[in-house]
């Protein structure tokens, strides 16, 4: 089999359509992961051990098991309990949940990177908790957090094709469908790979630049 340019050109619109779905899923997924991650981070910081301890284990469990199996779990187990969601919704939920365990660690590290003296100084100045968090802690924690979040955004983008296994028509889903119809796999899978490169390499460069810029800030 040799590369067929004409065929490749013909299937490109479908793959690009898939790319739109991939980007959508990534953006929804990262939003969910950022919110859920914050919740997990706060639960873990809780002084009540009955809260912080189980949270730590749940995070550890989700973090050390495959996203693919978690997607299957949501997709196949949910309906047996009458919980039926669309494939894309299920996928976004899975991505968000899985990556929340990573973002929660990012938040934790960011908050811990602020020296104790900063909290103590805020107390000494009698700042309210809101002011302490909003004006002292977070402004110092966020520059630490942003590049890491950016890296997870890219990582998630590359995990979206897993959603193809639960019938989402992302880039890979489209490529598979094209392959199944035409019995040509070379072009769809190669183009799918190239599309990922085309997005993630510039994205990584952007994150790296952001990292440098934030690190340079006083």
């Amino acid at each position, binding site marked *: 089999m040799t590369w067929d340019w004409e065929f490749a050109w013909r299937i490109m619109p479908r793959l690009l359509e898939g790319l739109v779905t991939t980007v959508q899923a990534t953006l929804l997924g990262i939003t969910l992961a950022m919110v859920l991650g914050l919740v997990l981070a706060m639960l873990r910081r809780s002084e009540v051990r009955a809260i912080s301890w189980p949270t730590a284990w749940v995070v550890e469990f989700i*973090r*050390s098991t*495959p996203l*693919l199996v978690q997607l299957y779990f949501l997709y196949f*187990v949910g309906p047996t309990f009458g919980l039926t969601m669309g494939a894309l919704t299920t996928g976004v939920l899975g991505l968000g949940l899985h990556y929340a365990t990573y973002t929660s660690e990012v938040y934790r590290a960011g908050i811990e990177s602020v020296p104790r003296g900063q909290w103590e100084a805020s107390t000494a100045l009698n700042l309210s908790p809101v002011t302490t968090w909003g004006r002292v802690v977070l402004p110092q924690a966020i520059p630490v957090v942003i590049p890491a979040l950016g890296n997870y955004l890219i990582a998630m983008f*590359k995990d979206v*094709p*897993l959603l193809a296994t639960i019938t989402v028509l992302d880039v890979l889903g489209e490529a598979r469908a094209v392959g199944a119809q035409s019995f040509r796999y070379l072009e769809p899978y190669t183009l799918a*790979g190239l599309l990922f490169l085309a997005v993630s390499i510039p994205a*990584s460069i952007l994150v790296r630049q952001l990292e440098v810029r934030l690190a340079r800030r006083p």
Partner: protein
Amino acid sequence: MLSDNALWRPFLDGIWITLQVTFYGAALGTFMSVLSGLASMSSVRGVRWVSRVYVDFFRGTSAIVQLFWIFYALPLIGPSFSPMVAGAVTLGLNMGSYGSEVVRGAVQAVPRGQTEASIALNLSAMQRMQYVIFPQAAVSMLPPYGNLLIELLKASALVSLITLADITFVAQVLRVNGTASTLTLFSIALVLYFVIAQGIALVVRLAEARLSQGLEVGRGAGRRAA
């Protein structure tokens, strides 16, 4: 039902496959991490460039897409591999592209004085790396290396998609056969992965304790946030 042989037998086989593909992937991944990490610090520009392209390529594409490409597309224009080889190679090359940075970071974190002392003792560049720099870097490499192994284990579930009968594959087959409820099957699969991951983490911690004996740098020197 949980004592059912029809349930456990396949899962046991699945565990064995998962362990194998993880092991082979880890072996290749470790090799590639060191090779590419050292290459990225080479004084020869071309060597640095090759390492860079390798890292960017594998980090820039998705593991599942790589796997499908190697297993479904590559045979059409080149060699074809068994699922086990295709799986281990993809996982290993992927891990290496992340491990490369781990190795580089850890090597560069070894204080300059160590290199200078080695020069003063007239060690060759090879001896310097082998006996002085690398052993110290290894200690700070271990925690992130452990994380990479767990990521590799997780990614190994992908091989179920190229017909390799690992834990995930078994769960899917049993689901289709209706051997047990989906809740049971996928819970078992998740717990199995979790247990293996904990095992890996334990081994890495033990190795770390062992390697850092007597080292001032020791634990946490190379630990990264997230």
